[in-house]
């Protein structure tokens, strides 16, 4: 059952990330989507990929985006 | 074991890493780059044709170690590791690409006093990636090296100080980030249907009807990979961004970028033909997009005032000829397409470097502000003119031979209208080129034309001269390469 919840969270956080006004929130939601996919990889019998995805998708990608936002502009208008 | 085959990829990567670290030390970097630039064509010439099984996964050797239940099944003959194939066909393209890279690096050294390590890193990394693309028989390995090539291409534009280069780089990356994952998804569909990534295995399975050749997975994979291929080779709808990319790079950078594009186009195009030649509408689709590419790019080239944009559009239009040859799909037309691709690498490099000297002299690329440059260096002017003739297809140059073969193959295959379009596009290329040549070199020099440099560097003259000689040799003795190509094509279809 948990896998369906995770899939739904992954897709919805992706959609909500793109609807945010505040880009920092979008970056964090991208990270949430990344974590959910990492868990999904674990369920799909790929533990080593899950580790990589957990680092890249949940930490590196949102941090890069957040750094870029810090150097540019935080709001999307 | 044939160690020279993996060395063709390893040497440029090593050189790239070292040059990146010691970029500040001018003399060592120059020496190393030139040595490696010479080494790649030489290795390509002397290497013995063969097959390299990475990790020792040679199916004929490990077949006896498999469990008994797998004996005689399809799985026992699959290649499980990455396989590099080196034959005379790969030899020609790696030699020519290595030659162009060497000449581009040579001209780069004269353009700037301070050389930059990262820029050389990008050139060598791209060279290694396209070499691996050409050698690799594994479609995912090709995808990885294609992504490296794309990043190297973007890096080469970023490292250039022209207006709007960052904008073009970001645009190319964003478009590439759609094209790349589409390619990956297509590879995923093929993997899901067939269970192997090795092109030889995939082609074997499809040709022996072990899977339904028109199964939905394969059709979707075909569409996605075809889309990725259009992005790789700058066919419409990507011809504008591709030509913008060329016009933003330094002349030597543009020469290399065009070489990379042609190599990527060939590697993926051959994979497409080997895997998907049975698809309905395969040839028609290729011919359609090739014609759109030729007509659109050449007509846009005719409208440009900026000569760098003009050559960039002409270079993209020439890629349309290669796609046309692949699309007609007969043995002669495929040979012509491969020959045309060879010529395309050489002639575009010649023109980019040759016209690059104009920008070097005057720091402007607007033909309306230029004129009378033949008095600066008439040798260069004549060599550029001859290079343009080679591109437009004037005898006795190689462009004429390949276009003649292409037109002939179109007639033989029963498409005289394609032949007519090809001839018409060639004539347009000729007039566009002659008009630009006339305005830049022959018309009276405008009074307000300022010179940034007084003379053309000798290295640029040397580079253009070498390329012209190779073009002439290929034009007079085309059988050097066409024999190899026709035997390669004979094994392809």
């Amino acid at each position, binding site marked *: 059952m948990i896998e369906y919840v995770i899939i739904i969270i992954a897709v919805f956080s992706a*959609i909500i990330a793109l609807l945010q006004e505040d880009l920092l929130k979008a970056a964090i939601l991208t990270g949430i989507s990344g974590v959910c996919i990492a868990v999904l990889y674990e369920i*799909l019998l790929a533990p080593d990929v899950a580790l990589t995805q957990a680092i890249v998708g949940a930490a590196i990608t949102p941090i890069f985006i957040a750094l870029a936002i810090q150097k540019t502009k935080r709001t999307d208008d | 074991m044939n160690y020279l085959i993996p060395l063709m990829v390893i040497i440029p990567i090593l050189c790239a890493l070292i040059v990146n670290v010691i970029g500040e030390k001018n003399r060592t970097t120059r020496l190393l780059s030139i040595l490696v630039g010479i080494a790649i064509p030489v290795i390509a010439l002397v290497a013995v044709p063969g097959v390299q099984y990475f990790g020792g996964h040679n199916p004929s050797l490990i077949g006896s170690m498999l469990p008994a239940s797998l004996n005689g099944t399809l799985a026992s003959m699959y290649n499980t590791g990455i396989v590099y194939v080196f034959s005379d066909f790969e030899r020609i393209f790696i030699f020519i690409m290595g030659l162009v890279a060497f000449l581009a690096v040579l001209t780069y050294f004269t353009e700037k006093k301070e050389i930059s390590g990262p820029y050389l890193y990008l050139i060598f990394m791209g060279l290694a990636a396209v070499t691996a693309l050409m050698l690799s028989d594994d479609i995912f390995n090709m995808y990885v090296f294609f992504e490296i090539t794309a990043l190297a291409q973007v890096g080469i534009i970023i490292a250039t100080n022209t207006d709007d280069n960052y904008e073009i780089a970001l645009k190319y990356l964003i478009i590439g980030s*759609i094209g790349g994952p589409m390619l990956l*998804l297509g590879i995923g569909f093929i993997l899901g249907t067939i269970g192997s990534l090795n092109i030889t295995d995939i082609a074997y399975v499809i040709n022996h009807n072990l899977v339904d050749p028109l199964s939905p997975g394969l059709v979707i994979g075909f569409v996605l990979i075809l889309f990725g291929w259009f992005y790789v080779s700058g066919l419409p709808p990507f011809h504008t961004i591709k030509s913008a990319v060329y016009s933003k790079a330094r002349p030597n950078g543009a020469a290399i970028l065009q070489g990379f594009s042609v190599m990527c186009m060939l590697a993926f195009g051959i994979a497409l033909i080997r895997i998907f030649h049975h698809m309905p509408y395969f040839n028609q689709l290729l011919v359609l997009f090739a014609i759109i590419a030729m007509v659109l790019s050449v007509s846009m080239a005719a409208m440009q005032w900026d000569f760098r944009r003009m050559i960039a559009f002409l270079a993209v239009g020439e890629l349309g000829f290669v796609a046309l040859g692949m699309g007609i799909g007969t043995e002669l037309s495929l040979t012509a397409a491969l020959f045309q691709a060879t010529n395309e690498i050489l002639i575009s490099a010649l023109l980019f470097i040759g016209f690059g000297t104009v920008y070097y002299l005057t720091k402007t690329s607007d033909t309306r502000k230029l004129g009378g440059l033949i008095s600066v260096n008439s040798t260069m002017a004549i060599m550029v003119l001859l290079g343009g003739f080679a591109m437009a297809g004037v005898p006795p140059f190689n462009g004429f031979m390949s276009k003649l073969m292409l037109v002939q193959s179109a007639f033989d295959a029963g498409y005289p209208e394609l032949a007519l379009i090809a001839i018409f596009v060639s004539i347009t290329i000729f007039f566009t080129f002659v008009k630009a040549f006339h305005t830049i070199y022959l018309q009276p020099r405008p009074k307000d034309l300022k010179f940034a440099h007084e003379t053309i560097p000798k290295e640029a003259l040397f580079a253009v001269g070498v390329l012209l000689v190779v073009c002439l040799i290929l034009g007079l003795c085309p059988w050097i390469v066409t024999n190899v190509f026709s035997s390669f094509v004979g094994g392809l279809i």
Partner: protein
Amino acid sequence: MVVMDVQLASLFCAGALVIIGLFAVIFIDNIIKKIIGIAFIEEGANLFLIALGYKAGGVVPIFMPGMNASWFAANSAYPLPQALVLTSIVIGASTLAVMLALAMVLYRKHGSLSAREIMGDEE
């Protein structure tokens, strides 16, 4: 009620991510959001590959000591896509970093993150 199995649900999730990402890249004007969309496309493509190799009721494709080889071969998930995705994740991350760096440079030059303002004058 028919319960969808995990593999099919994951494939749908991958498709949804690719479509969301494509939508963002094509229709959203903000460059950072375009780049986030590209990250979703890449994640979708990776998830698609991993879901292909899944085997319902199978085991993780890591050969432990004491396992029976033919039992393992019959019951493990397909490991090839997993090896591919490891490479692909890294490629995606590096492309993302380059794009974000370019976005930062362009913001300094144009003072805006709007794709129309930055790239509009081209063509």
